[in-house]
């Protein structure tokens, strides 16, 4: 670690009188990776937005390279050498890699013609310097999300940024891509660039960061040296209690439990290869694997959201043809997408409307929707699920990720579904709400529902699954009983390419 380049002290930010930040502190040295942690809503993003000039602070001081600064816009902070890399990338898919990097400052021939080859040459030099292996003449859209992120980092470096903010950079990366990212981060560290790393993933933070600053409810809680701390200590600071449960020791499924869903030899060109598995009543079948292993594709095929080329699906012993989601729902199968905003929610509609969306038939009397009784049902079910909201009239956009997820669970419970396919059930959900989601899934199986749970978090898979199906490149490479599902074993099968 080098000298201090950033010091934020006593930052306050209020939105219509409510404190979003209150006495928030943060420091960063050159060549340091400093993790910023806290539950969703702890104020991490707000603090970063204050740093970038997107928000104006109400009190406190920001010192950058020993100078007091007060950025009025993101352009100001960019000029001062700060770059922010968001979860959602801000680049243009149709342009080439080089065109994206030099957007807004294109190389010109004679002042009127864009000189692409010169930009590609410059991009190539840039990539060589930071050890990225990407062809700058490719269109950005043809790259994986991981590669796109590296392009964005390279773009930041090309802007001579001395301070990088990485906001959940690994959320959509495969394990090899994470490794590549960390390699690049280590290179940048050697070049004296300071990095602020926001992530929920403990294991990665333990590996990559030098220090960890924890925030809670908009306040600074403390800063730890990564080497000298433990996962429990960090989580304790974040929530004030220990919540990550232990690995499940033994399956709770009765040995003679009936098979509720069986998939035989499912195929779809290039993404699903000869997949067969069984799901039993009351079971949580975990689906583990790297990003792009085909887990979501299987879920969507079973659910009828996408088609499949060949294969057989049996529900409760009966062979079924599922061509569209409504066919699956009729059989009691439901799917909760990882991307709730796009594939699950009507953001501008109320909790009540979202809850009864699939079961509106139950509330129609003589052709009229009985909104009162629909609202009552929505209220009851959301009470059971402990959805936190002011009322069932509240719009979904105003709820946190965890509560939005609960409303979708409510939707399927009201529809009497009994086979739940959860795709990354806790993505974007803060740690406190995570354990609630775990309890909810356990409650569902205790009531005889069955769950397929796709998750990229090994601790989540281990905590909940009765069995673990591991996938690699469209194939199920192993179905492990939970007793044998160690991290090493899962990773072995997840990378078993042949």
């Amino acid at each position, binding site marked *: 670690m080098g000298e201090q380049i950033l010091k934020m002290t006593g930052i306050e930010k209020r939105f219509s009188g409510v404190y979003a930040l209150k006495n928030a502190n943060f420091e960063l040295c050159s060549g340091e990776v400093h993790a910023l942690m806290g539950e969703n809503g702890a104020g991490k993003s707000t603090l970063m937005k204050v740093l970038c000039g997107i928000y104006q602070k109400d009190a406190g001081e920001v010192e950058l390279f020993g100078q007091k600064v007060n950025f009025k816009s993101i352009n100001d902070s960019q000029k001062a050498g700060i770059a922010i890399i968001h979860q959602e990338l801000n680049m243009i898919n149709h342009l080439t890699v080089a065109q994206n990097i030099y957007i807004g400052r294109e190389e010109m021939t004679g002042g009127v013609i864009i000189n692409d080859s010169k930009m590609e040459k410059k991009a190539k030099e840039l990539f060589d310097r930071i050890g990225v292996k990407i062809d700058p003449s490719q269109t950005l859209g043809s790259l994986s999300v991981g590669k796109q992120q590296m392009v964005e980092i390279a773009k930041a470096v090309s802007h001579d940024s001395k301070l990088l903010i990485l906001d959940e950079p690994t959320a959509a990366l495969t394990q090899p891509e994470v490794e590549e990212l960390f390699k690049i981060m280590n290179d940048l560290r050697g070049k004296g660039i300071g990095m602020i790393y926001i992530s929920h993933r403990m294991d990665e933070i333990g590996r990559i960061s030098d220090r960890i600053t924890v925030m809670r409810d908009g306040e600074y809680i403390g800063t730890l040296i990564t080497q000298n701390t433990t996962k429990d200590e960090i989580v304790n600071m974040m929530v004030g209690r220990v919540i990550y449960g232990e690995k499940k020791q033994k399956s709770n499924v009765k040995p003679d439990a009936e098979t509720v869903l069986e998939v035989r030899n499912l195929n779809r060109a290039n993404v699903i290869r000869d997949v067969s598995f069984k799901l039993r009543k009351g079971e949580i079948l975990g689906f583990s694997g790297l990003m792009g292993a085909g887990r979501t594709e299987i879920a969507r095929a079973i*659910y009828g*959201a996408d088609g499949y080329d060949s294969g057989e699906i049996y529900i409760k012993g009966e062979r079924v043809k599922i061509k*569209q*989601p*409504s066919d*699956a*729902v*009729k059989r009691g199968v*439901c*799917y909760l*997408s990882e991307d709730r905003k*796009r*594939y*699950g*929610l*009507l*953001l*501008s*509609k109320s909790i009540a*409307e979202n809850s009864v*969306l*699939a079961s*509106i*038939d139950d509330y*129609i009397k003589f*052709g*009229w*929707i009985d909104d009162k009784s629909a609202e009552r049902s929505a209220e009851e079910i959301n009470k059971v699920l402990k959805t936190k909201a002011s009322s069932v*009239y509240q719009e979904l*956009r*105003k709820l946190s990720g965890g509560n939005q997820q609960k409303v979708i669970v409510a*939707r399927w419970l009201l*529809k009497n579904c009994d086979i739940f396919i959860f795709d990354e059930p806790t993505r974007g959900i803060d740690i406190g709400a995570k354990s609630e989601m775990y309890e909810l899934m356990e409650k569902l199986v205790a009531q005889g529902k069955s769950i397929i749970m796709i998750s990229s978090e090994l601790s989540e898979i281990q905590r909940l699954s009765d069995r673990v199906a591991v996938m690699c490149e469209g194939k199920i490479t192993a179905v492990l009983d939970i007793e044998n599902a160690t991290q090493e074993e899962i990773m072995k099968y997840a990378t078993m390419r042949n």
Partner: protein
Amino acid sequence: MNIIKFMNTKGKQNIIIFLALVALIVIFTALNPNFINRYNILSMAQSLSPYAFLALGVTFVIATGGIDLSIGTVCIAAAVIAGKLYMSGMPLWMTIPVMLIIGIIFGIANGFMVAVLGLPPFIATLGTMMFARGVSALAVSVPNIFYPTGTWFNGVFSNYSGIPTGIFWVIGFMLICMYLMYKSKVGRYILSIGSNEEATRLSGINIVKYKILAYLFSGLGAGIAAIFWSASFTTVASATGNGMELDAIAGVYIGGTSATGGVASVGGSIIGSVLLVVIRSGLNFVLAKFNLNLNATYVTYVLTGVIVIVAVLMDVIKNKKIKSN
């Protein structure tokens, strides 16, 4: 609680538009008291009904996040073809089912192209708009179609000894549309599709069916509008009513239905249509009174253009505010 909710969601813009309407009526009357004489009210009411039916129908399509540009020419095609059949000896009452069926067929065709074939609504209905215009010109060899005057047909749908009967039909149809939009499954799903189509599909709802229904309603609206157009204007040529779809769609946007779908105001569509009729007529009176040598139609367009942009801007600003919260 419910009143506040109503105000915040769909009510507010309605109230603003309604107040604007009242203000315009007051201004026009002040400038030229003849504006509210009996005959002008009757004439405004008669010209309102076709636009109102077009607006009500297309509200369902706009609620899904789509658009239907074909309603104007489909309306004229229905009026022209049914009129041609009438002139060749078909009983007058038969023109009613013929016009409705023509509207419905075009509506289903639009719905099929959008929901099943996956064409963008703008393109699909642009094609239908041109197709319908061409068909109505080809179907009719004579320059004008004449519907009868002074028969039961005109009495029931347009003017029964000074009573603008069309208005009652508009109100009745509006109530049916309110039921369909807010209290039936069809409307609930149409609004859900406009709000988030993919989430609606993944909730196990057959979105193809409901999108086709939305376009069917729109086509049916055009068929109904044709009845009232024929009864009120009695002379129909294949080139009449050019651009009437745009007037109707403008009325829908002015009425507060969101251009991106998911939020619809059936009552607003009516208020928006009335507003446009009042402006067109009022400007005629004002320009005549002050001997201004301007074409009222064009002044109406200028004013309507501004109002549509302001109305949609209000919607955009509201959405931005919601997002930034």
